[in-house]
């Protein structure tokens, strides 16, 4: 045990570490485990304990498309500055997977710390990182845990070791464990004893040598931690969704699974009956078909899916557009094409959804960047869908949907539910009838009736074939053309309803950045890096919806160069912008792309923008 990096028992912490600089609240931890080993609770406890110490934190799960056996990594970024984008450099590695441990160690930067199972003998690999060997099996056995659950309890041992080495307060660890196992007191006690075993081992047998420390701050008070899919599910529930259909697909399944939990808890009436229907469909074709049938009959309906499901929904999306039926589709994007990498993130469905269907079609897209927007857009999507009588797609992604994010608490929706232009029997009596597809108000949005409206003039014939204002079958050139032109005008009306883009910066810089969705978190950090390292000041416009509003045109017009940041190969946002923008303006657009399936990080952006600006670091 004399290899460099290992510390002999009995030496005091202060005498060793403090030769170097301490790095407080600004580092990342990576936990390398085997998929299916049950490390999720342990990782969550670590994340939440740091969060409860008041320190900004984010967690990202990089996992394989596999049930058990393949390697998986969980990364916790601790950032006093509040940066929550992925950080590529790992400072503290917890190596629990013998398959990847060697490679995981080799990929570390000098100065990193490694907590590992002593049997891996990692300390022979490198001399420039600090090694903390831990006899995990022995410590796990000491908790008295039953052999069957030792694999799970073992994970809590590394929580204890890490807590001791990184100065994470045991008080918060204990609170986090108790909250994690709220209803299982026995499990909480067992897990706590594993944490303590790790903590005590580290205190008595390891000497802290690394510079990384967590110190209490006051930056997370009042905040919550939640994943985007749960937030979207909350949005749907508070939007008053009544019909939910779905077909399981990673990474969207948890939107509906979480929604089922919420609805069972909060939407069962006193007589035990449900104010909703949730149906697992036979495929995505049926899921969207049911959404459209329910939307036609007046329900607030939704489904959640990912790329392959969107592909299957194309024909129905055209039907809903042409027959003008509301519905909400949450697309939690993953990499494509085809099966792609199902557990890796992407922003690759943008252009496909924008015109999803054969023929001339345009769809409204809302693009949340935060868990709070998943919730808020989850509510807004239903209002817009019913007001516009069309499908609304909410484009989240795997990074946002399945990872834990800090957030300000969500706000209760004060705006009443907007049901759009629906005529009842009394109104029909006064009007003497109606024409389903007539633009009465000049906003190109027609009036509709719901099946069951008790008036002889209420019914109309809904069809995906050519139709005139009265919803009668028509192949007349002028009627087809007029209807298509009205639909185009209706899409213009959507601009008044969708979330507007958000400008950051004073708007006076030469360089502009356009981004959307989860790229936001890397962009804000990159802007800081560009300013500090290369003295490049930028303005930043975050696009939050399609159709694009005037602010986007103005932003492009008022900047010399605009970097469009996106997580796909083909610069999909840039291409959508090109379609809309004045051709003279489009030459200003440049692309910054990141599409390897991992969440985008700030350094990638900074390097790309700085080098194009001739300010390479």
């Amino acid at each position: 045990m004399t290899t460099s990096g290992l510390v002999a028992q009995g030496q005091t912490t202060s005498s060793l570490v403090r030769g170097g600089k301490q790095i407080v609240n600004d580092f990342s931890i990576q936990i390398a485990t085997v998929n299916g080993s049950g490390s999720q609770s342990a990782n969550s406890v670590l994340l939440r304990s740091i969060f409860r110490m008041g320190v900004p934190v984010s967690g990202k799960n990089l996992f394989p498309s596999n049930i058990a056996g393949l390697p998986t990594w969980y990364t916790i970024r601790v950032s006093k500055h509040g940066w929550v984008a992925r950080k590529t450099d790992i400072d503290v590695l917890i190596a629990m997977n013998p398959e990847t441990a060697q490679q995981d160690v080799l990929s570390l930067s000098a100065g990193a710390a490694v907590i590992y199972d002593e049997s891996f003998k990692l300390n022979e690999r490198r001399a420039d990182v600090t090694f903390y060997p831990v006899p995990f099996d022995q410590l796990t056995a000491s908790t008295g845990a039953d052999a069957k659950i030792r694999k799970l309890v073992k994970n809590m041992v590394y929580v204890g070791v890490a807590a001791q080495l990184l100065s994470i307060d045991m008080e918060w660890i204990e609170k986090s464990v108790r909250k994690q196992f709220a209803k299982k007191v026995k499990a909480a006690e067992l897990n706590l004893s594993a944490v303590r075993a790790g903590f005590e081992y580290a205190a008595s047998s390891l000497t802290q040598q690394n510079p990384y420390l967590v110190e209490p701050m006051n930056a997370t008070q009042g905040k919550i931690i939640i994943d985007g899919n749960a937030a979207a599910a909350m949005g749907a529930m508070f939007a008053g969704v009544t019909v939910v259909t779905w077909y399981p697909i990673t990474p969207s399944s948890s939107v509906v699974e979480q929604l089922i939990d919420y609805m069972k808890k909060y939407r069962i009436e006193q007589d035990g009956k449900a104010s909703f229907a949730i149906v697992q469909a036979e495929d995505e074709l049926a899921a969207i078909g049911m959404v459209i049938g329910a939307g036609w009959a007046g329900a607030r309906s939704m489904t959640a899916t990912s790329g392959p499901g969107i592909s299957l929904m194309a024909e129905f999306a055209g039907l809903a557009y042409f027959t003008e039926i509301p519905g909400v589709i949450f697309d939690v994007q993953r990499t494509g094409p085809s099966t792609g990498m199902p557990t890796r993130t992407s922003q690759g469905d943008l252009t496909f959804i924008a015109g999803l269907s054969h023929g001339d079609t345009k769809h409204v897209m809302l693009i949340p960047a935060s868990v709070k927007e998943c919730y808020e857009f989850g509510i807004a999507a239903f209002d817009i869908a019913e007001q516009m009588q069309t499908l609304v797609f909410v484009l989240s992604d795997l990074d946002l949907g399945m990872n834990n994010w800090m957030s300000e608490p969500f706000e209760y929706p004060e705006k009443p539910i907007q049901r759009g232009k629906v005529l009842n029997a009394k109104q029909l009596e006064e009007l003497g009838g109606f024409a389903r597809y007539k633009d009465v108000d000049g906003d190109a949005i027609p009036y509709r009736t719901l099946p069951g409206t008790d008036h002889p003039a209420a019914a109309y014939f809904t069809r995906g074939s050519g139709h005139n204002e009265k919803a009668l079958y028509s192949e007349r050139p002028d009627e087809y053309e007029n209807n298509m032109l009205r639909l185009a005008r209706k899409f213009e009306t959507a601009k008044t309803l969708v979330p507007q883009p958000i400008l950051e910066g004073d708007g006076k810089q030469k360089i502009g950045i356009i981004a959307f969705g989860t790229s936001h978190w890397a962009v804000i950090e990159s802007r800081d890096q560009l300013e500090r390292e290369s003295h490049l000041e930028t303005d930043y416009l975050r696009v939050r919806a399609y159709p694009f509003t005037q602010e986007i045109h103005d932003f492009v017009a008022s900047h010399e160069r605009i970097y469009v940041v996106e997580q796909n190969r083909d610069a999909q946002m840039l291409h959508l912008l090109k379609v809309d923008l004045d051709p003279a303006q489009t030459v200003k657009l440049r692309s910054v792309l990141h599409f390897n399936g991992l969440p985008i990080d700030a350094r990638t952006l900074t390097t790309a923008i700085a080098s194009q600006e001739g300010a390479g670091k």
Partner: protein
Amino acid sequence: MSTPSVSPKPVKTNRIGLQILDYRGGKTTLCAGCGHNAISERITEAFYEMGIQPERVMKMSGIGCSSKSPAYFMSRSFSFNTVHGRMPSVATGALLANKTMRSIGVSGDGDTVSIGMGQFIHLLRRNVPMIYIIEDNGVYGLTKGQFSATADIGSKLKTGVINDLPAIDTCALAIQIGATFVGRSFSGDKKQLSAMLKAAVAHQGTVMLDVISPCVTFNDHEGSTKSYKYMQEHEEAISEVGFVPHFEDIAVEYDPNTTVDVRLHDGSHLRLRKLHEGYDPTDKVQATKMLMESHAKGEVLTGVFYVDTQKPDFASLLNMVDEPLATLSQERVRPRREVLAEIMDAHS
């Protein structure tokens, strides 16, 4: 769309005071003599005679000649002509939104058994409360005469092409998958089809009716097994179907030795006068066996093969509130402020 006009002499009305005119649809654009038109007429009559308010009915269809036909009956009902083979999901969604509505779906053999097989069997499996009619001519009419999956093996197209794949029997399939009312009729058999449709209206659950409906343009020639001539020569009724609505006297003509009486959900009675000894419409195994035997003999068996009045329909299984989900007030669908606070607290 129009309200009944006032005429000087008393007109015949049904029990809710509507005339047959109130159940009429638009003028058909299908071929003269098409079996589908006869089916539209029987549907019109059935809903009129049963006294169903047309505004309480949703007419659903997919794509094809058959799927156009909802335009030709009951214009005061709400209609949705969807996409090819996918009517079942849209119909299911519509019923989830408003379970108080009645629903009738009209499809064809191509729309159901070829492109739509997936959705069709899941509709049956769920026992979605609706009437599902297959207007079955064994041929794609709208694309001018290609075989569908109900075309019999050995049958011949006008072009001389012979079908060398076996037909799928929608009735046998429906019985196996879980439909709770399964029958087959012939568009030209006015009496049988009318009785079946009225019983269908009274049933709660999926009614699957396969109605052989010859295509006069592409499949009514020598060599076709779905022509008028073939049907007249080969149709064999399993039983004589009688139907007594719940609002009529049900004691008439009751003969326990030769009839089976099925009590439907609204109190109506479906009466099968046995032509086959020992036929029991609640026996899945026997029903399937009879269908197989008739295939072997080259006969087309008609009648109501199977009825189950006990299995809960899909809307009941979901335990929804009594009112339509579509029109629940904000107070019932948006949880209170305290709920948000509770969830926020759980994530703090």
